[in-house]
């Protein structure tokens, strides 16, 4: 019997991410063609150049970047891809810019499921479509097992700032009203309660959403009354208000009774001993507006889905500059401080 040596063709169909997917060779091409391009393709990406060549409309350019490392990657109400698109869109929009183009950089852990990667890419494409932005350039790297946690995504974006609009966290004026677009803590508690180690379940879903539509409507209707906007992400509304107060060297006073919190979120926060004001949001907006225009802005926001629950939560005061103070339901006052690093559940 003769033995015929067989040199097998390399496996090209994988179910998980291989080191070779990031090596720039054939498998990298397969990844592009099978996973990324079918969902993300557009006039810029289709050229497969190393850069996107863009003609920007006139106006000042806003430029922002953020990296997403959320765990779990899929959470109730969204996933890391959707978050990565909306997050950068929001960072541009709160500066008064119309977001136009995004880049997307992926760091994939060897062994990460390609089906899950495709789900993530698909929802990035959908999120971009909803927000009216294009992902025009991208990059993928693969690192060895254990060298990252499944998938990290960086998105950068550019947008054009509206003529005559000047939004900055330094612009707060005494007597401005502070408007919050809806309930606090949804995203953070959706993540926390879906992590392992908690023996209760919840139906809390993330509020992950692009805010540029709502912001654009506000600026259309009330173009010059807005002094600052922020999306209260990490550190929650408490961190955002503290940043605004300290950047503008003013005090902010808010009223406990006005802060909207969903019952499930409130319940989970009570159980874990966490202040909902310290919990992250991914689809909420804080607006500082001249007091005389606040009702008009509120009306505009409430007419929109994302701003349905908008409320005035407080105002800018000349007392205690740099500090945020809450008037409690009992009439006493307390400081709303920045959260100190990691949220630690209480022990008894």
């Amino acid at each position, binding site marked *: 019997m003769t033995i015929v040596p067989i040199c097998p063709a390399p496996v090209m169909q994988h179910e998980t991410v291989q080191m070779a997917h990031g090596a720039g060779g054939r498998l990298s091409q397969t990844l592009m063609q099978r996973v990324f391009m079918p969902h993300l393709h557009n006039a810029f990406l289709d050229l497969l150049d190393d850069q996107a060549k863009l003609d920007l409309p006139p106006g000042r350019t806003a430029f922002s970047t953020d990296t997403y490392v959320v765990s779990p990657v899929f959470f109730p109400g969204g996933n890391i891809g959707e978050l990565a698109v909306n997050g950068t869109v929001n960072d541009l929009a709160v500066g008064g810019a119309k977001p136009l183009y995004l880049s997307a950089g992926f760091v994939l852990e060897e062994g990460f499921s390609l089906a899950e990667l495709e789900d993530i890419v698909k929802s990035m494409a959908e999120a971009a479509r909803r927000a009216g932005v294009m992902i025009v350039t991208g990059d993928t790297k693969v690192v060895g097992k254990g060298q990252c946690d499944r998938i990290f995504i960086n998105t950068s974006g550019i947008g054009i700032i509206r003529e005559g609009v000047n939004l900055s966290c330094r612009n707060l004026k005494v007597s401005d009203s502070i408007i919050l677009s809806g309930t606090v803590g949804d995203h953070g508690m959706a993540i926390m309660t879906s992590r392992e180690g908690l*023996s209760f379940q919840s139906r809390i879903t993330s509020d992950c959403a692009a805010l540029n539509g709502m912001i654009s409507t506000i600026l259309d209707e009330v173009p010059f009354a807005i002094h600052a906007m922020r999306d209260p992400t990490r550190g929650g509304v408490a961190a955002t208000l503290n940043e605004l107060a300290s950047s503008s060297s003013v005090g902010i006073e808010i009223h406990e009774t006005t802060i909207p919190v969903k019952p499930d979120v409130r319940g989970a926060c009570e159980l874990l001993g966490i202040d909902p004001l310290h919990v992250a949001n991914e689809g909420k907006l804080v607006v500082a507006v001249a007091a005389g225009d606040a009702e008009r802005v509120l009306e505009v926001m409430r007419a929109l889905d994302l701003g349905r629950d908008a409320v005035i939560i407080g105002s800018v005061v000349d007392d205690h500059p740099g500090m945020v*103070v809450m008037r409690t339901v009992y009439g006493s006052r307390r*400081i709303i401080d920045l959260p100190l690093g*990691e949220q630690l*559940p*209480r*022990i*008894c």
Partner: protein
Amino acid sequence: MLTPMKYIDEYRNPELARKLLNEIRRKAAHHWTIMEICGGQTHSIIRNGIDQLLPDTIELVHGPGCPVCVTPLESIERALAIAAREEVIFTSFGDMLRVPGNYRDLFMIRSAGGDVRIVFSPLDALQIARDNPAKEVVFFAVGFETTAPANAMAVWQAAREGIENFSVLVSQVMVPPAMRAILSSPGNRVQGFLAAGHVCAVMGYEEYEPVAREFQVPIVPTGFEPVELLAGILKTVELLEEGKAEVVNCYGRVVSRAGNPVAQETIHNVFEVTDRQWRGIGLIPGSGLGLRESYARFDAEKRFNVTNIFAEESPFCMSGSVLQGKLKPDGCPAFAKECTPQHPLGATMVSSEGACAAYYKYHLDTP
């Protein structure tokens, strides 16, 4: 905008709170100093600004009932030494991770590669031990009578199932001996107590009756929500004004006179009374719980041979006086200067239940 939440909102009702405050104002003819035992109560009082709303005649001083605060530096140093070991998965309630030892905390051990995990229950730690048979899983068993039953249960289950890669670093303390120590101390100012509601849920309040008699102080088991705290303060003021040194339960929805006998039995099966060091206060005889001889093999101090680790407190930290109600946090010269939550000198500035942290976090006149 808050959606009503059963079992919470009725105890936060501003109208009821106002009525109770008026009653306290009406009843308080003399100046009284009342100590709330539990750090959870301190936190709620300061967070809701109850101290600002009380009449000047009622002074609240904050008690030693913050487990994180009173866990001795020695235990922290021993925890750090164990957590740094390669074969160990060190598990703890979240609060303990930021408590500084001499120069580092458990977070720093974790960032240096130690496997330190936050758990919500000691039974979760036991599960980690089942899942990782090749590792030594250690749980930091701190706390008062509230955490003791679950901590005891974890050890009891480990013994029953023969889970030999599980052990506990015990620093359990008890309230009544601490109350006696405070009342016997020369500079004591405390005239009445709000007893810690959750401790009483486990132990009942019968054991406070001799303390009330012996030291002639009223003791009132009290809850944690604003209305409950105000009701507890009102009852204590009434008893003080009437000169009655009695124990009166103001946390009836949770506490009974006998407490929870099953929980007590679990504690006594696994633990025995022992002397215990309290951080900032010192040794209080018979104030702690330690593993019984029959469970000694689950003692992490012995298993990892760390009983020879000792530690010294910062000479600037006055948390001992704060924990005994002799000093208000903002009366300490280091408060908000050398000592902040970012750079705590003592545990009372670290824990969410520590009096110094509560003052720093919520009080408007913090420098």
